[in-house]
């Protein structure tokens, strides 16, 4: 059984195909990447897997359970976490509360218990605080726990989104251009961190990226899409030699491949 199985999903926006007939399989304990030029349909694919956008046609299975039509909160509850290309943190919540947020669906107390702030709620809140703090520490963010996300630098906000995504203890983590806006040094560090997370938490990660060189070292499978269609799939070594990929990249990005 594979962790994730995507079967020929498509999505149209007003007649324009953002992605068509995209299929992929994601095994457990793997890091893979979806790469492709601007507007290729990478984010749309993530949106469909995470339930943020509906699927027009095709099917998605998580551990052989169909999740195609499920809303995003249920998919998250099943263990799929994600980050966003243009960081979406909750501005009204402090850094640590942002992290706590993604654990909400696992809390079991009733509204009435929250009315009176019952001992169980109090205890849970303390535990939650501790767990969230651990994640912040892992990403070196603990000293900002009480600040608002806006006051953080871009790189730190990206890390905070990662922390928030992990708080849910996901089986599958979807990272949409996690290195966007970071400088080369930060990017290298981030890729190291992602690898470390994968090993420590035993989860499976899919990274969406523009640039193949960023993901070469840490990915075992790369899926390449262009104009909404999958043009190649394979190990980094295979992809780098693939004619179609070279063409797509050379045509669109003037040899930005490495």
């Amino acid at each position, binding site marked *: 059984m594979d962790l994730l199985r995507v079967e020929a999903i498509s999505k149209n926006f007003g007649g324009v195909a953002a992605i068509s007939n995209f299929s992929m399989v994601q095994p457990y304990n793997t890091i893979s990447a979806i790469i492709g030029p601007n507007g290729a349909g990478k*984010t749309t694919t993530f*949106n469909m897997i995470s339930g*943020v*956008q509906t699927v027009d046609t095709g099917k998605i299975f998580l551990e052989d359970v169909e999740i195609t039509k499920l809303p995003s909160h249920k998919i998250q509850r099943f263990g799929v976490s994600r980050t*966003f290309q243009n960081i979406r943190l909750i501005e009204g919540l402090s850094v640590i509360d942002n992290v706590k947020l993604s654990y909400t669906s696992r809390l079991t107390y009733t509204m009435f218990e929250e009315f009176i702030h019952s001992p169980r709620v109090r205890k849970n809140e303390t535990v939650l605080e501790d767990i969230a703090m651990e994640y912040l520490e892992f990403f070196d963010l603990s000293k900002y726990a009480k600040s608002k996300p806006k006051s953080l630098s871009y790189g730190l906000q990206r890390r905070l989104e990662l922390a928030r995504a992990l708080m849910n203890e996901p089986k599958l983590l979807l990272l949409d251009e996690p290195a966007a806006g970071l400088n080369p040094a930060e990017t290298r560090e981030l890729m190291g961190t992602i690898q470390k997370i994968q090993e420590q938490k035993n989860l499976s990660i899919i990274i969406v990226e523009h640039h193949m060189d960023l993901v070469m070292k840490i990915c075992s499978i790369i899926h390449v899409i262009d104009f909404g269609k999958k043009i190649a799939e394979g190990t980094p070594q295979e992809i780098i030699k693939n004619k179609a990929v070279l063409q797509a990249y050379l045509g669109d990005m003037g040899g930005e491949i490495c």
Partner: protein
Amino acid sequence: MESGVFVQQLVNGISLGGVYAVMAVGFGLVFNVLKFSNFSHGGVVTVSAYAGFFISSKLISSFPLALIATILVGAATGLLIERLVFRPVRLAKKPLTYLFVNSITVAMMVQQTFAAIWGSYYFPYPEFFKRTAFSIGQLVFSGTYLLMLAVSAVVLILLTLFLKKTKLGIAIRAASSDIYTPPLMGINTDVITGITFIIAGALAGITGFFLGMTYTVTPFIGSSMIKGIIAAIIGGMGSLTGGVIAGILLGIVESLLIAELGSSVTPIIIYLAIVILLLVRPQGIAGNLYTVKA
């Protein structure tokens, strides 16, 4: 219902519907560009209704000139509100919520200011025409209503031409994505927003004048904006054509229901119908469903 009465109510309904359509378009235009429910529109309607009264009874007795003067007052008020109250929020790129809150605040301020000054007075518009009704066979039509209908139709047609044919108009329609994204087609968002408010204000001017003619002027006259809002919802928020069709439909349905069942049940039926419509077809007659983008 007798067929004669039916035709009469139908004509009245269409005329009233024309006013609702003008309101819906004024409201919808701002919604289209700035994506918030602009309740200050009702405030501009109130200001215009008072202005129309003072202009027509004290300054200019000719109907067309008084109407034009009132439209100018409405347009100026619209622009003034935009520059004083909305622009600072826009420039600071604050959430749309704040625009909305400012708009209800303006509506409240206008209503309460007039209530404080002239709260206990009622201002009836002068009779513009000696003959206010004329008859075709058995049927009696209100001249005022027919005139309102004619003016509304002309204004809406002119507006459509402007929005479809001029560069500025096209820019206004295109600005419907998000005010905080970069300016479209090289036209500054600030200019587009200003012009949108001028047009909406002018439409509010017409609305205020006509409502003043139909009813008496009170500080609460702006609250009748609810009719325009209902039309905007039925039409599909942000779809101007939908708003016009829905406005006229609303006017007809309302007139017929009032004639048949009385004025107390009518609003209840209309509101219930809207809730049901939203359940079945939330995007209204002609609109798109606005959703958040990922």
